[in-house]
Structures are given as C-alpha cells and as structure tokens.
C-alpha cells in the first residue's frame, strides 16, 4: 500500500513539497520539456531530454516525473524499485527546465527540476533504493575518497616531474577524481599551461577528496556534505584566494552546492575556461601558434546550464589563431547532454553511450573535425562514443587545445 502522502525521510523534500505540491499540478504532460524547439530561422526540431527519447514512455520526461511526484505526495504511488527506475534513468541535465513552455518551472526559481529530482533520489537513497552500482561508487568514495575504487595515494600519480608546486601560492588547482584517475591528460595540460605561463600554484595534495558531486547526484546528500566540509576546511587551512578546477562537476559543487550547504565560500572559484579567459584578458596568455582546425564545442551541463558559463570557453577558443568554431544546433542553454551525469554512466552505461552517440552525430553534422569540451566526465563518455561511432573525430579538452596554440 502506498504510504508516503506527505511523509518523507528527507526533510528538504518534505519542505519543498509544502509549497511545491501545487506546482506539481501545473504540468499538463505536454512533453515540451522533452523536446527542443528552435524559433530562429533554422526552424528545426530536435530531441531534448535524453531520458525520454531513450526510454520512450512519458514517465521519463520531466513532466512525467513531476506528475509522479504529485501522485507520491497524494500517497497513490510508493517509493519503490519502479519509481527508482524512473528517477534514476535521468542524467539530471536540466534541459527540461529550458524547454518547458511556461508551465511548471517558471513559476518559481526554487522549483528547479534538477533540485527536485535530486531530492527524490535522496529519498530513494535513504530507503535503500539506489542502484547497486551507485551504492558501490558511494562506498568507494567513503573508503578511497574517489568513486573509481582507486587508491587515494595514487591521486597525484599523473603529476609530471618538471611541474613545481609552490606552497606559498594562494592559487589552488582542484583536480577532481576523473581528471586524476581517468582523464589525466586534462590535469597534465592544465598544470602545463600554468607552468608555461609562469603562474605559481599548489594543490590540496592528499587533502583533496572527491568533491561530492557523484554522491549528491545519486542522493547521498549526507556524504556529499561531509566531503564539502572536508574540502572547504582543507582549503581554508591553506589560506587560498582562488581555486581553479578543470572539472565541470567539481565546479558546480564549489559554485552552487557548497555555498548552499555551507554558506558563502571564503575564496574565489573559477573553472579553467574562466581562468584562461582572464589570463587572455590580462595579456598573460599568448596564443601564437596556428591551430588550423574546425571544431565544435560541447557545453557540459554542470558548467553551462547549471551555473551559466557559456561564453568563457568560446572566447578562449576564438582566441586560438587559425581555429574555426562552429556551433551544433543544440548549444549553450539548449545543449544536449553527454549522457554521463546523474549516476547514469555507472548504473546505465548503455543509456550513457546512446546519449553520447547522439551528441557525436550532431558534432559530425556540423562539419567539425574535432569535438571540444571542458569537463573530464563528458570527455570520458564522449570519447567512448567516438571510439564506437566515429573514430575519425578528434576530441580535445579546451586545455589541450590551448597547449597546442602556445608558443
């Protein structure tokens, strides 16, 4: 028997539903959230929500999930495996919010789909209903401070010998787990740029723990908070003024989630793309070598839609001599997700790959020879898709391209 009419384990969900219940009635299941609909001269209509287009049933659209939440609140649907399947097969990319025709989301800022879905996931997690794969990586974060079941002491194994760490610097490079263990070319490129421009920096060393993003996305809110507290405390101890990160997931945590959990942070946080833009503006970064390449840029959801950084990476790309940037039809706020986020890569790898292949096809259609992004996790998934679908398409992180253009 359903038994959850208004009774939630997660306090924030209960609080949210106090005022949000009425908004859940506002959705008319029109599925505009799942589509993407362009009004400019191109007049094209494309797929929006990966979850809906992959799984086809209305329930997988954001509107469907909101409808379900309404039923949950009324006690007509229970928190169980069936509900978990619907809520976890979602990359929490947030495109639904951009596409809604004006029904639910726009009524109030705080009625944000990603936030709501994450709170429902927290409830599911608290009830032991997360996927076993999620439980494994959450366990690994607890044990090893990273979700990849890698040894904590290996976190900085990638660091090239010639790079000098300056403990006096007030700039910290927060590397993140994916750049450290899976996509170390991004970490290497980032430190190499700093080294060549002559910017002193340090890292958190063994005090760098997972930023908490993977935990938070699948509903392990308490753990995410502990990680936030640890990382922020460690940074405070180091007396830093600026933190840069090359991971969109870490960036979102520092920029949005940490302040929500802990209040305003006592240091500035920049994504590498923003930092590079600043260096260019200050004339410190010189891009002199031609990179004769047609590229297209994939906006990571955590950097773009979730926090609003769209222009910095583009400005940096456009500063590269010889490079031509062409946009995919779905870009900036309307970007199609890479498919990796929200715990999907771990629990539903086929869905993650399907989503990434869609993106890769879109990139190829622009005529670009390389796909660029600014997130190791996107990179991870998009590279898998490229390998399977289009090995002729190159993939670079923005930092890697910058290195190519530096004297």
């Amino acid at each position, binding site marked *: 028997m359903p038994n959850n*009419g*208004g009774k939630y384990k997660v306090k924030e969900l209960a609080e949210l*539903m*106090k*005022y*949000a*219940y*009425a*908004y859940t*009635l*506002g959705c*008319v*299941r*029109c*599925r*505009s959230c*799942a*589509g993407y*609909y362009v*009004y400019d001269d191109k*007049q*094209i*209509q494309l797929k929006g929500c990966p979850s809906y287009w992959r*799984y*086809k*049933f*209305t*329930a*997988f659209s954001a509107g*469907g999930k909101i*409808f*379900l939440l*309404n*039923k949950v*609140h*009324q006690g*007509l*649907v*229970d928190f*169980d495996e*069936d*509900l978990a*399947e*619907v809520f976890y097969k979602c990359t929490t990319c947030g495109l639904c919010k951009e596409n809604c*025709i*004006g*029904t639910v989301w*726009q*009524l109030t800022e705080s009625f944000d789909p990603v936030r709501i879905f994450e709170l429902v996931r927290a409830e599911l997690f608290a009830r032991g209903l997360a996927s076993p794969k999620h439980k494994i990586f959450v366990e690994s974060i607890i044990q090893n401070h990273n979700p990849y079941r890698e040894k904590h002491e290996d976190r900085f194994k990638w660091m090239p010998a010639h790079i000098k760490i300056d403990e006096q610097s007030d700039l910290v490079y927060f590397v993140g787990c994916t750049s450290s263990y899976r996509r170390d070319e991004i970490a290497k490129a980032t430190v190499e740029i700093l080294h060549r421009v002559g910017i002193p920096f340090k890292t958190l060393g063994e005090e760098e723990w997972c930023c908490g993003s993977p935990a938070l996305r699948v509903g392990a809110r308490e753990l995410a908070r502990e990680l936030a507290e640890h990382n922020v405390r460690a940074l405070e101890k180091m007396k830093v003024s600026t933190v840069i990160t090359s991971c969109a997931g870490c960036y979102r945590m520092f920029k949005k989630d940490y302040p929500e959990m802990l209040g305003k942070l006592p240091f500035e946080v920049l994504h590498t793309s923003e930092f590079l833009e600043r260096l260019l503006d200050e004339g410190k970064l010189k891009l002199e070598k031609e990179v004769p390449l047609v590229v297209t840029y994939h906006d990571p959801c955590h950097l773009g839609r979730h926090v609003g950084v769209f222009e910095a990476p583009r400005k940096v790309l456009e500063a590269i001599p010889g490079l031509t940037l062409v946009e995919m039809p779905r870009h900036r706020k309307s970007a199609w997700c890479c498919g990796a986020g929200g715990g999907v890569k771990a629990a539903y790898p086929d869905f993650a790959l399907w989503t990434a292949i869609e993106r890769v096809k879109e990139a190829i259609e622009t005529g670009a020879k390389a796909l660029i992004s600014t997130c190791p996790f996107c990179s991870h998934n998009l590279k898998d898709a490229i390998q399977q679908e289009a090995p002729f398409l190159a993939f670079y992180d923005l930092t890697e391209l910058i290195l190519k253009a530096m004297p």
Partner: protein
Amino acid sequence: MLVLHIDERKVEALREKYLKGLSWAIETANRIPELRAQRKYPKEKVYRELVDLLGEDRVTMNKAICAVHGTNTLGWKYHSPPDIIAIPLNTEEVQEIVRIANKYKVPITPSASGQSFGSVIPHLGGILLDMQHMKYLKIIPEEDIAVIEPGVSYAELCLECHKYGYTFPLGTFPPFTSVIGNIFFASGGIHRRSIHGGKPGGLTEVLGIQVVLPDGELLVLGSDDPPYWWTHSYIGPYWQGLFYQSAGTLGIVTKAAIRIWKRCEEERLLVYGSPSFKNTFNFCQTLARNWLAQDIFVLHWGWAIYKKHRVRYTNELAEDAIKARHMRDPPPGVPYNFISIMLEGFKEDVDTREKVIDRIAAQNGIRRIPLEELKAKWPWLYEHFEVWYLKNLPVRLEPYGGITGSFAIMSHVPTHKVLEIEEYEVDHMLQKIEDKHPGWICATGYLAWPVDGGRLWFFRTVEFLNDFSDDPALMTAIKEEASTEIMATHMPVLRALGWMGGVAYPGFDMAAIAAADYPGPYKLWKKIKKALDPNDVMNPSVLMAVPDNPEEG
C-alpha cells in the same frame, strides 16, 4: 449593461439535469475499483505476448510508469492507471496489439499525445496504447496533402510543411500535441484560419484515414497512394465521420491524409485595442462577414495580462490586475480587449485590406496598436503573436497551461447571443467566482473569435487554481466546489442563454453532460459500438456506465 433575458424555468430544468449527471459521475468515479475488478484477464500472459511482439523496450508494467497515465491533463481526482503500456511504431503493430486485446478481452485505450481533458484515462485498466512514437510524416506538395501518423506533433508537421512552403492551421495547444489527436478528438480551437472553420483541421480537412477496427482488421478510407485521398466519393455513408470524435471507441486511426495550405506571398499581423466588448464585437463581426481577414482573435485583458505575468514575467502587472479586481475594469493603459488579426494574400490585396480594417476600427472606436508598442508594453503578447502568426510555428509560450488548469468552458455561441453571453461570463460568472474564492481561483477572462464568416462565435473561458496548499484534499475540495458551481449555477444559465454546450471536465463529467444533452446520438453511438466491438475492448470507459446514467432513460 444589457438586460439579460434568462428563462428561469429553463434554467431550473437544466440545473436539475446537470446535477443528476454530476452525482452520477461522482458515483461512477467511486466505483472505479469495482468496475476494474470486473474486467479480469491474465495480465502476465498478455504482457508476455506483447513483449514477444514489441520487445522489452516498448512494453511495461512498471507501476510508476503506468501511474503517469492514471489522471487526465487538468484533473487530478481520479487515479486509474493502465496495467500495461504498449508503444507501437506502425499500423501493423497496432493491429497485432488489438488482436491480443481481443483474444483476452482486455480494455485498450488509445492515446495519441495523451493530453486531452478526460477520455484518455483507462478507467477500466488494461492496455494503454501509446502512439506518441508513430511518426510517419510525408508532405505531398503536388496534392496539398500531408500524410501523418498519430505521433506527429504540430511542431513536427509545421516544420516539415515549411520546407515545402506550406502551412497547417495552428491552434494554441502545446507544440507536441498530436495532430491526429487534435483533429479527431479535441473540442476545437483558434487557428490561423479560424474565420473559416474555427477548428484546426476539422473533418473537412481530413482527406483520408486508415483505421484499425476492434477486431484488428484495417479499414482503409484513403491511403498514401493517389487517387484515393478523397473519401467523400466512397460508397455508402460518410464512413470517416464514424471515427471522428468517437474517442477511440470504434477504431484506432493510425494514419490520416490531411489538407495543407500553400503559404501566401504576404502574411501580416495587425493588433488593436478595444475599450469594450461591444466595440470589439461590432468591429470583428464586420470584418468576419466581409471575409476581410484570415484570422481574428480576441483576448480579454485578464487573460492577456494577469495570467501571463504570473507565469513568466514580473508580477508587477499581475498585481495591478488584482487591484483592478473587477473583470470589467482593466488597469490604466490596458485595453479591455486585445484583438489580433492575420492577413494573408498578395501584397496589394493585403495593403488594401489593412487600410479598410483601419477605417472600420476607427469607426468603432478601436485603436490600432503598432507592433513596436505591443513589443515594448506587452512583450509576451508580441512574442506569442510573432511565433504563431509571423513565424507560423506552434506557440511555445502558450496561454493555457500556465497555472493549474481548473476547469474550462468553451463552445460556440450563436452570433445574436454573443453580447449577452460575454456579459454573463464576465459580470456574473468570472467575477463571482473570484469574489467567492479570493486568492484561490483566478478568473482569467476569455478568448473569443468569430467563426464561419461571423455566423457563430467561439468562446473559451478557463479558470485556474492559482493559490496553493500542500494539502491535496483541500485542493481537491476547492476545485470540486468551483466545478460544481460552474455545473450547477452557470452552465444552465449559459445554456438557457443559447450557448451551445461542450465543456471540458475531468473524467466522467463530460459523459454525464453529453448523455444528458444528447441522448439520441449517445444511444446510437452505443449501438454501433456493440456491433463493431462485441468484446467491448476499445476504450470502454468512455461509454461504459452510460446505461446507468439516469438521464439516458
């Protein structure tokens, strides 16, 4: 103010009838579990057979996925989800699914986009046949025809039409509304050529259909291959009419050939502001009678200003609107009615008509609102008209789904009654509802437009529940109270005034009204259904309890 000629005896008789229908509807709703239990079938077996047919990906018994379909778009008092959802991708699969349903006598509810206001709830459980991914779409420019499947949305059809320089008359529903769902099963609405028909598509614009009958056989009334589009020349009655507005009870339309329109050399939007509905009416009626425009669309200020602000823009003007309180008094600087007019044709012709329309406007005390002014003062209206009229795309910023839809009243009104109906709706209905439920119900005003050269008018009023509580019981109670008030108090009066019926309510209320108002056609419908569908598998909930309805006798 007019003197309203309301025949009280007629009102009383109608009230009694509707209230009986309403209590029947409520009783029936309460019996859903019992009625569902009567339709027993081997669920697992049916599921397995469907999986064998469609694969695991397109069939589900997941309770959460099914729960999404247990309630209609606006209503939330029912919860009657399907047991199984099946997603076919073509006609052959639909046929096979229907055969399986027949074999085990499983109720089957077809759903196109599933956004309608009542009849797509599988009250008796069974299979929900979800056709939203049937997306065959072919434009045949040399014949002015598009062939579509139920999954094709207005957005998709329009964008495809544009590639060929064509258009399909657009309504104000969401971009992803199914064209077939709308043409065949909606109550009709505004569109670019509303002055002609007042309904997007409409039967006359459907040139051929393919229907899966209750036994799984395919009935072809027109096909992809010319020259069989023109079903009017078929033998016997006008068969297509059987499947029109029959809500999937007699057959499932899997393909339709519809008429599309070549776009004109010149498309021009004119917007006017009117100080009262009397001025509006005289102005629009003159234009409509003389076929001076392709489309005329009247918005009550409340609709244009109040709700839009709640939904998307700042609340500043909405607050003004609330302060204005009386639905008769727009805030300063806002016209009582906004009127948008679409002109299509050759440039010289459009230039001439624009001049004539300006003259008639001035004669009626109506002010032309330049588009720049509209854009500056009411950007959401400009955006809406721009997308809809000038870009010829379904509106994204669409005006209905803003706040929890509570109930809608919409239908045709005979021309000589339009002024009275407007007066009753504004002064006696909308305003009273606002007064009675301050803070809860938002009386949004109305949309209206002349139809068929001004022979009829279409009137649409929607009330929204706009203040919120986390208590579902309270929300339901308020909504039910408001619905009952509409049904018991206002519907009979509107009807007695000459309003032609058609009301969108959740669930059975619609059936209750229909059976009360149209007993003859209702009986005939059921007889035909019995003959075509002896196992009563096709959307049985639409007609299921009608024999028990006291109004049917």
